């Protein structure tokens, strides 16, 4: 699999906005005149190329010209700029804006043929590009989706060429013609507190994780995902072909937080981390109707996750991080919810789907788009037949694909994000909800944005009250029952940090306080006193005495034991020398024992203040400082003793007369064995520290003292008779002889054979009988002849 294609974020696009004025020289004069017409009206056609360029450059810098621009804008352009203003930034994703523009201004049918031309859904967006109001962020000039080449180098985003926000007003577009439903049954809604609990839980879990690793190819690293899942207690989304996505899911929330800019992905350092420019806690503290707008926008832009993959649609989350058609249809759907005739009424999902089909369906598809084919010389009957075929295919495609997706979007993320409520029609045989209406948060996020300013006024009441209020009960068995409707996100976040959630439903969540959960809360920065105070302040009753006492004990226990990693300690000769340095105030630190000082300053600062004899770094392999002899004597080389070597030696050696001399003996090895050391442990520990090779004789001795039966193994000192021969052939012959062989033990050399001790006489007699002259002197090899000298 090749590496993921990574695109800049909208923040990055906005920081590197292309300069429209720089591009004008390479645009044709016809296009330039068209762009100039936006600013100066019909007079633009009198301009030549150079004049058009100068007019555009001047107009872009002239605030008065920008104010007058509003009079020359078409309805499409006005709405396009309004949609950008609603986003609060000068850049927008192409897939989203293109679909929204077609949703607001459907492409009309051909005046002669009566059917809609097979243009793409980028048509309206391209009109704005041609008129010079928007510019592609990839610095290309052609229209979107116009060429084979541009498809494979698809542009993610477009930007406004100038700041038009001041001249654009937010006005509600025309409402959709949708019938309302007056009777419903089995209405279901999701409480914002449930969603807040999940959002808070995810934020806390990610905070505890710190960062999520990515692979070299830009995918989520499995160990990181597994850790995050474990912290959350959610099951990972399983592989699904065409099944709807289950929520909550880690992937959904990860992408939601990324799209909301609360998390940031860095593909060069291969990690997803919290975005330091945004504070997640503050976001979660905002009144839910305000938050809902953020989540709705994030949902529109999230990628690498879809509601479902209908038959005929494709989705490749591991190939590209760009926006897809799914972002386009999300944008169209969310926009349509802002165009409802009555925001408080119920509607059929199918009706909205049909309306979207009529507006965008002929130019937009999640998969293959149906098209009308008739040959140039087709008769009217053939043409009509082709048209019927096209219409049938078009309707069927939408029903199987886009309509299925729309239904899943309502029952999945829109409901999950508390933007809509669902219900069934009376007398409906199916249990599946088919009706929807905007929730309070949905109205604020999607409908009111066209009618009210984004920030709430002083009269707006938040759904969840922030600040401290009593919202939980702490039970004597260390369980805490939290009433979700009363708890603020900050309180939920606190409880997520100090307890382990056992269960939750629409109204309550139950946590358990354990030693581990309290310990990790303390380790992650909550002070012990703060923990007790916050727990008490949120409790509807006083804390049970046993709980309060135990929590205090757990907090105090942590204070009794400290582990310091990467600590720096200065060693002095004695107490007096150390105290003299402390009194002179040269170095600040904590005195340890008689002659050590624990310091916090960095090494450079220490060496500036104090003349040191050297530095020993314990991070790397321990330095070789021992000389080990065959007889077990171990000498610590002068000047190379560190803090650990004596402790290590004392585990399996005996001290000698001097602190630098130790001895490995049978007794010391057996004492180490009784304490649980193996022979290999002792040898390995020595190997790490010796300056030369550990003597093999001592290795075998250690093994033997330890009680190892296989090494060094049995040895023997014996005096068996030796039969020597003058040549190897004679020795071969004797060994091969069948009646001599029984008297022999083993051959130990080419001309030497050991004989069984009780067979000496018999063998001697036998060999003598067969003419082998058997003597008693040792046969020594002949001396080499002396070298001849000239």
């Amino acid at each position, binding site marked *: 699999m090749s590496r993921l294609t990574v695109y800049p974020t909208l923040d990055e696009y906005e920081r590197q906005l292309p300069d429209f004025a720089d591009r004008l020289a390479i645009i044709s004069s016809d296009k330039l005149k068209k762009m100039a017409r936006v600013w100066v009206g019909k007079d633009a056609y009198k301009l030549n190329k150079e004049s058009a360029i100068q007019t555009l450059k001047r107009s872009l810098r002239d605030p008065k010209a920008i104010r007058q621009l509003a009079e020359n804008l078409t309805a499409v352009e006005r709405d396009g700029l309004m949609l950008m203003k609603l986003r609060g930034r000068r850049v927008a994703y192409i897939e989203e804006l293109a679909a929204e523009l077609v949703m607001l201004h459907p492409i009309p049918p051909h005046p002669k043929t009566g059917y809609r031309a097979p243009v793409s859904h980028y048509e309206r967006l391209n009109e704005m590009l041609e008129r010079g109001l928007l510019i592609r962020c990839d610095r290309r000039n052609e229209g979107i989706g116009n060429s084979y080449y541009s498809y494979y180098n698809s542009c993610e985003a477009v930007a406004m060429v100038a700041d038009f926000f001041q001249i654009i007003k937010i006005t509600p577009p025309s409402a959709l013609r949708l019938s309302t439903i007056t009777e419903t049954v089995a209405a279901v809604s999701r409480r914002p507190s449930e969603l807040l609990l999940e959002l808070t839980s995810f934020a806390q879990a990610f905070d505890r994780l710190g960062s999520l690793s990515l692979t070299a190819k830009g995918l989520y690293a499995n160990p990181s995902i597994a850790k995050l899942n474990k912290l959350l207690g959610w099951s990972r989304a399983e592989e699904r072909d065409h099944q709807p996505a289950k929520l909550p899911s880690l992937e959904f929330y990860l992408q939601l937080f990324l799209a909301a800019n609360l998390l940031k992905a860095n593909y060069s350092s291969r990690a997803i981390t919290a975005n330091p420019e945004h504070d997640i806690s503050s976001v979660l503290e905002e009144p839910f109707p305000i938050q809902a707008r953020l989540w709705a926008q994030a949902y529109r832009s999230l990628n690498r996750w879809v509601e479902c993959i209908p038959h005929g649609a494709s989705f490749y989350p591991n190939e590209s991080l760009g926006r897809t058609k799914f972002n386009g249809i999300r944008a169209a759907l969310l926009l349509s919810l802002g165009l409802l005739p009555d925001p408080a009424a119920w509607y059929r999902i199918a009706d909205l789907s049909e309306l979207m089909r009529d507006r965008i369906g002929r130019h937009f598809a999640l998969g293959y788009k149906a098209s009308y084919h008739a040959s140039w010389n087709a008769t009217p009957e053939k043409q009509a037949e082709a048209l019927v075929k096209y219409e049938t295919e078009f309707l069927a495609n939408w029903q199987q694909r886009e309509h299925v997706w729309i239904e899943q979007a309502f029952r999945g993320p829109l409901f999950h994000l508390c933007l809509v409520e669902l219900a069934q029609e009376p007398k409906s045989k199916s249990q599946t909800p088919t009706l929807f209406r905007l929730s309070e948060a949905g109205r604020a996020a999607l409908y009111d944005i066209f009618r009210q300013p984004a920030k709430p006024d002083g009269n707006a009441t938040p759904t969840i009250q922030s600040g401290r209020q009593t919202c939980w009960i702490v039970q004597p068995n260390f369980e805490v029952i939290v009433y979700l409707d009363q708890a603020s996100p900050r309180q939920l976040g606190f409880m997520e940090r100090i307890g382990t959630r056992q269960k939750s439903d629409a109204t309550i969540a139950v946590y358990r306080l354990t030693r581990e959960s309290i310990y990790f809360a303390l380790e992650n920065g909550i002070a012990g006193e703060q923990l007790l105070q916050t727990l008490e302040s949120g409790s509807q009753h006083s804390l049970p005495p046993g709980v309060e006492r135990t929590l205090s004990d757990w907090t105090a226990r942590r204070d009794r034991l400290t582990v310091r990693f990467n600590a720096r300690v200065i*060693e002095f000769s004695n107490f007096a020398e150390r105290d003299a340095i402390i009194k002179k105030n040269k170095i600040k630190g904590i005195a340890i*024992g008689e002659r050590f000082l624990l310091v916090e300053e960095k*090494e450079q600062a220490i060496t500036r203040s104090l003349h040191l004899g050297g530095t020993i770094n314990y*991070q790397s392999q321990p330095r070789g400082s021992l000389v080990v002899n065959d007889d077990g004597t171990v000498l610590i080389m002068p000047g190379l003793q560190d803090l650990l070597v004596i*402790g290590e030696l004392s585990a399996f050696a005996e001290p000698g007369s001097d602190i630098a001399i130790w001895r490995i003996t049978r007794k010391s090895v057996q004492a180490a064995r009784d304490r649980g050391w193996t022979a290999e442990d002792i040898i390995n520990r020595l190997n790490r520290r010796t300056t030369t090779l550990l003597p093999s004789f001592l290795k075998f001795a250690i093994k033997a003292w330890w009680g190892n039966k296989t090494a060094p193994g049995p040895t023997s000192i014996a005096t068996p008779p030796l039969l020597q021969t003058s040549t190897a052939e004679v020795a071969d012959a004797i060994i091969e002889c069948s009646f001599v062989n029984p008297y022999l033990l083993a051959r130990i050399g080419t001309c030497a054979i050991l004989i069984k001790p009780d067979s000496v006489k018999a063998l001697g007699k036998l060999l003598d009988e067969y003419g082998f002259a058997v003597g008693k002197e040792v046969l020594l090899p002949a001396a080499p002849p002396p070298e001849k000298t000239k």
Partner: protein
Amino acid sequence: MKKGKPATAVTASAPLLPAEIELTAPMLHANLTLVETADADLMEELLADLRVGPLLVARLSECVAVVPADKSPELHRWLLKAGHTPRVLDEKQRNDQ
């Protein structure tokens, strides 16, 4: 349940380093892993623990022990398993911040 010999583990000696030593100049020991207890009784308890004790190789004082670098990664884990809840301080992280 099958009875058998309990698993043995390397137990510790962790001698107290001498109160006086000959040094030509003070020595800096960097990147040490230290275990610090509030009192000597807790240190004895750690030394006697079959899982934690072997990790403590030497003592700078009655309440401060040194852990070799190769044993540092497992120190926190074994302390937690033994039921302790240590405060963890990493000088490197603090300096980076």
